[in-house]
């Protein structure tokens, strides 16, 4: 357990240094949320019940999601391009732990979106950005980051089998923004879609963070959101662990790890 944590921590630190200078991830963490946040602020500010914190939180979540969606497959693709994927798969360290650690580094980096989102509301638009429950929002952010990290880990093993998976994942970016209610309520979606949203960790992340930021969610409601955040994230992490084993076994059997 200690060894696994040490490996994860080192992977996280190495990856943090890599993503901090990656043009693509800087775009995902800084520039894309900036544009999405500013555009959304203009589009929603005429509502009678407009709360700038809603856009701030939604923008931050969109930045974190965009980063983590591509980070897992990106980490594996990076290993493939640099010729270290086979070495990594053959090493005694758990592949799942190494990639999970790498994604933890990216997750920490992606939290920069939150700082930026506050800047959009407070500096660019001059709104008084007030947090109703700062402590609960901080806790919700930590839990949301963990669940979104688990979602990122879930997508990662696909890149072992499918080197162009990044293009495929692109299709999930905006739908998850919409299905999770980052920047508008999911009730705007057709009725049959709403139950699907409950299966997604990003949805519960949005419920918890929007609720804590606005104060609209009472404590039992918040605890319920946290529970489902951990439940859905935990299920995805469990599946991801099995997927890692399965795809690695398959890749070893076919002998095409670097070629798939």
């Amino acid at each position, binding site marked *: 357990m200690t060894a696994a944590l040490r490996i994860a921590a080192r992977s996280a630190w190495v990856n943090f240094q890599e993503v901090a200078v990656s*043009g*693509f991830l800087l*775009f995902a963490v800084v*520039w*894309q949320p900036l*544009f*999405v946040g*500013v*555009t*959304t602020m*203009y*589009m*929603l*500010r*005429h*509502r009678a019940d407009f709360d700038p914190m809603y856009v701030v939180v939604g923008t931050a979540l969109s930045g974190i999601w965009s980063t983590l969606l591509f980070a897992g497959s990106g980490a594996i693709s990076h290993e493939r391009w640099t010729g270290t994927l086979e070495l990594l798969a053959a090493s005694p360290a758990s592949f799942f732990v190494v990639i999970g650690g790498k994604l933890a580094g990216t997750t920490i980096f992606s939290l920069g979106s939150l700082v930026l989102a506050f800047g959009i509301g407070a500096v660019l638009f001059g709104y008084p950005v007030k947090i109703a429950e700062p402590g609960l929002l901080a806790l919700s952010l930590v839990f949301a980051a963990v669940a979104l990290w688990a979602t990122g880990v879930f997508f990662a093993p696909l890149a072992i089998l499918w080197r*162009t998976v990044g*293009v*495929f994942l*692109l*299709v999930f*970016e*905006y*739908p998850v*923004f*919409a299905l999770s209610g980052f*920047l*508008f*309520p999911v009730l*705007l*979606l057709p009725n049959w879609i709403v139950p699907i949203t409950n299966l997604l960790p990003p949805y519960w992340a949005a419920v918890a963070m929007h609720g804590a930021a606005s104060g609209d969610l009472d404590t039992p409601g918040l605890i319920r959101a946290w529970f489902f955040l951990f439940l859905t994230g935990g299920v995805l992490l469990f599946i991801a662990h099995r997927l890692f084993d399965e795809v690695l076994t398959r890749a070893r059997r076919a002998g095409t790890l670097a070629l798939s």
Partner: protein
Amino acid sequence: MRLFTVTAFYSFRALFRWLSPMPYLCFRALFPLAQLAFFALIGTYGGSQPLSFYLVGNAIGTATTTAFGVSQAVAGERQQGTLSYLLAAPAPRAPIFFGRAALHVADGMINIFVALAVVILVFGLRVPVEGIVGVIASMLVATIAICGLGLLLGAVAYIVLDTAILANFAMFIILLLSGANVPLAELPGVVAAIAQGIPLTRSVAAARLYVGGASLDAGAGLLLGDLALGAVYGIAGFVVFNWLETRARREGRLEGV
């Protein structure tokens, strides 16, 4: 002409691993449609403009993804290591450069047609019969104008290296400033002035006129303006491309400009 056609065909076909249909479908159809639906739903929630405002703006806005393909078709030569061969060839530069945008115009039109079909069938946008020709003209002009921008981005990418990020910047700037999602009157004065210098601003405005039932003449000036702007961007790209080539030859560091 042969050079133009060959360049157009192969540079398009080899892009983004489009040798298989799935990545093409994901990037050129599903991603822009998801983006369209997302901004249309935010607009609905915001409620400051009618839904048709966001549907038309974002349907024309799907043209922005064309910029990725065009810019990558130019800049990809460097990434694939074929730039030196290309520049050493005696072939004239104009068909090689502009040929890279040719098929993207047709492809971009297909994308916007699909987007328009989605906003009509799924979101219920009504396009009056008298406005159909105008809407199609707006789509064509938007695509050509974006291709012009894509050519400039592709040439600039020889200096800044990362085409995808440049094209992403362009896409979000256009979605914010072109009036696709935010009325130009709401933008600060300087920003609204900048919006007049980016492609799509006029095409989006013209398409809204036509969806509102205006005659073809009503938006013709706007479309000519966007067409001219696209041409300026395309020619600027060609000038940058030639300048970089001359400089690279003079300094003997083609891959390190």
